[in-house]
Each structure stands twice: as structure tokens, then as C-alpha cells.
């Protein structure tokens, strides 16, 4: 099954969850998502998602200049973002629960 298709629906949730632990800049968020196991996540998708969440008012940004290398635009969750994360997480757990139930049940029948 193509996980990149699945990822599209839940990337918002994944990004919000990563930022709940600690503020992060774009490339840092990409790396943390990959390290968490979402190896197929696309760089541009993460940057796009951060931009959309920011414009939706769920994130705030601040820039940290860097002596060497590119400067870093950090994103952090604000109240709206934490609220969105809570609701999305609830939706996800219910959905995942239903689907797990369904898949396990179907597997048993088939077995």
C-alpha cells in the first residue's frame, strides 16, 4: 500500500505533533518526521504544510540568525495550534481504532 497517499491526510497532524515537543524550523521538522519513521515524507510537502498551518493561525514563527549557514525560521504551536492538535488527535484515534478493528476482524474471517 502506498503510504505517501495515506500520509497526505495526516501530515497536518504529524507536523503539529512534532512541533508540540519542541519548536522547529522547516528542515528540522522534515528530519524529525523521518526519524520518527515517516521516511516517505516529501520535503516540499512539509514546507507547504507549515506555510498553510501558519496562515491558518495555528503556528507562530520567529527567525534565529545563524553565523554560518542559512538562517532558521522556527515554527511554534500557539493556542489555536494546540487546540487543533487535540481535535485532530481525537479524530485520528477514533478513525485508527475503527480501521484497526475492521482490518483485524476481516483478517480473522479470511483466516
Amino acid at each position, binding site marked *: 500500500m502506498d503510504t505517501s497517499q495515506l500520509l497526505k491526510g495526516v501530515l497536518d497532524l504529524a507536523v503539529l505533533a512534532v512541533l508540540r515537543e519542541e519548536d522547529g524550523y522547516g528542515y528540522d521538522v522534515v528530519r524529525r518526521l523521518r526519524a520518527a519513521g515517516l521516511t516517505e515524507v516529501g*520535503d*516540499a*510537502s512539509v514546507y507547504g504544510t507549515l506555510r498553510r498551518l501558519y496562515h491558518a493561525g495555528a503556528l507562530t514563527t520567529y*527567525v534565529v540568525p*545563524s553565523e554560518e549557514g*542559512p538562517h532558521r*525560521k522556527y515554527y511554534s504551536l500557539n493556542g489555536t495550534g494546540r487546540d487543533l492538535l487535540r481535535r485532530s488527535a481525537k479524530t485520528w484515534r477514533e478513525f485508527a481504532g475503527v480501521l484497526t478493528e475492521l482490518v483485524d476482524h476481516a483478517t480473522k474471517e479470511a483466516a
Partner: protein
Amino acid sequence: MSTTRATAHPAVATYVAAVREELGDLPADELAEIAEDVRDHLDHVAAEYGDDVTVGVLIDRLGAPAAYAAELRAAAGLPEPTPEPAPVRTGFGRRLLRFLVAFFGWAAVGLGAAAFVDTLFGLSGAPAFFGVPAIVAAVLALAAALLLVTGRDDPVAELRRVPTAPLLAQVEEWVRGMPWGRPAIELVTSLRPAWWIARAAALALITFAVFRSAPFSAAVFLLAMVGSVWLGRRTAAGEVRGSRLLAVQLANAGLAIGGLAMAGVVAANASWDGVRYVDGGYDYTGPMDWDSGPQFYDVNGTPVTNIFAYGADGTLLENVRLYDQDGHPIDLGWFEECYEGAFDQSFVAANPWGEHVYPRLTVEVSSDGSCQPPRLEAPFGTQLPGTPAGPPDPLE
């Protein structure tokens, strides 16, 4: 905003420019924001490869710029680009027009710059030499651009297909990549209101060059300034879009080039009508070499210092240029001058068109040592005695 940052690798600049190109349908401000994010991203990726990074490496890692742009667009929830119209075969006429827009556009920029430098340093002595061709080229480029976009659904996309147009995006990307790029762009952006006034002044200058009426030009300036500031504020707020924005940008380019060239022509005419003003007399670069010109003497042995030519109807001819049998300008090697202190303006009765232009103006030093205003002292006045008066004035 950080102002210290590493210089972008050329591969990064190329990739970012390609992504920008893909997202070209977005509003300029939004596009600039996104391009900045993309650049930060690519800088991080490039940093992992050090100096070995190439466009090929970036494409292996991130996909083609088009795919990157599409992914970003989808994830950020940006509007899809309006689908390209079915590829109609590009006719010869259209390709020719695109070439002409590029050719005359760059010619106008080059000639305009030449006219500006020429006027600033007085190289040719005749700013119209570059100024007029610059205006002609600008008008031709505008005409070709208008023909090109007439009846097109997407004039911006059409202009983007003009040869060398994508180069401009790359240049902008390069500037942004420089350590001084962002402060410079912020500075230029902050100068917007000055430009709103400058373009009104350019319009007034062109009006003056055409109609030669100071009050009318002043009225045009005031009206244009009100309109320009109103339009500028709307444009800056992003309220002007699409083909209207394109029209504003084309008019801006025309006003910049036309205004510069007209300033040169007007400046040239201003000094042409009278005398050249020289500061202090120290930086005077005119013909100080007394041996350079031939000396002529009249029957009494007095040096000839001026020449007055009268036409067939007996009227005094002004600004006559004299040449000898070999085409060399006839310069009497003598001119009147008056310097008035180191800090005052002084007069030199030399004609800016050259030292072979007659009659020369007379400059006298008064008894207190100050310069008299230069004047034309013709021995017979403006009408040679004994000749019929000039043609009747049509207004009478």
C-alpha cells in the same frame, strides 16, 4: 530579519529560480515569501553536500523543480495554476514579436543608461545623441509588447515567453542570494514613495519637452503626483492585478526611460540656449590651449575674435557651425571668459556644441570685477542695415 547569511550556491539559485518560474502565477509578495522559504530549505540541503552540490544532486534528492513546486502548492493549499491553453503552434509573427520586445527593450535600457551617463559627464555634448534613440527603442518595445499581449487571456505568461525574460528572475534570485541582497531589496522597496513622485516628475518633464510650457507642466506634475500616489498605494497593497498590473509595469518602464532621456535633452537645450556655467574656474576643461586654433587677422592686423553671418534676407544667423575645406571645424582659438571668485559661478562664452559655433556671446568684466551677463553683440544688430526686414510675422 537576519542580514548575515552564507552566499547561496549557484545550484541553489538555479533550482529556486526554476521553482519560482513554476509558481509564477502567484501574487508577487506571496511568491517572494515562498521563494525565501525554498531558499532556506535548499541552503540546508546544500549544506549537507558542501561545495559538491550541483543542480543534479538537488534534483536527485528533492525531485525536479516542477514536482517540488507542485508538491508545495498542494500541501500549502495554494490555487492551482490556470491550465496552459492547448499548445497552439507558435507562428513566426509571434516569435518575431517576442524577439522584438526583447531586442528593443534591452536596447532602450542600454541607450537610456548611455544617455544618463552621457548627460552626467557631458561626454558627447549632445545628450539627444543617445536620448532620442532610447525613447524610440522604448516606444518600439512598448508597441511590440502591446501587440504581443493584445487579445491574449494571460498577458503575463505571454511576456514571460519573451527571450531573456526568465533571466530577470535569475538575476533577482542571485541578488537575494548575496549577503547584501535582502537589505538592498528592503531598501529599494522602502523607496517606493520616492518613485511615485519621480514618475510624476518624468511625465511632467516629457510634457515640458513636448509643449514647452512651464505652468502646464507644473499642473500636469501636481495632477500626476496625486494619481501616481493613489495608484502606487493600491499597487503596493496588491489591489492591482493581472493585465492592469502589467499595464502599470509597462508604463513604469516607459516613464523611467523616457524621463531619463527627456531630462538629458532638456538639460542639453537649457545650456544650448545660453552659456555654459563653470564652477570656480578650476575644473574648466574647455579649450585653454591658445595655440590650438588658427589665428585670423583682419586688414588692420587685429585678431578676428568672432564671426557674424547674415542670411540672404539680412537676418543674423545664430548657432552657425563653420567647417573648412577638409571638414575640420573652424575654431578661432579664442573666446571670452570671466571668472568670478572660487565659489561663484563664472561664465565662459563657449558654445557647448563646440568651439566652432558662431556668433559667440560676449562676456565682460565690470569695473568691480564681477561678471556681466553674457550677451550677443552683433556689430550690425540682428538685421543687416539696408536689407528688407524679415518675412512678416504670421501672427500679425
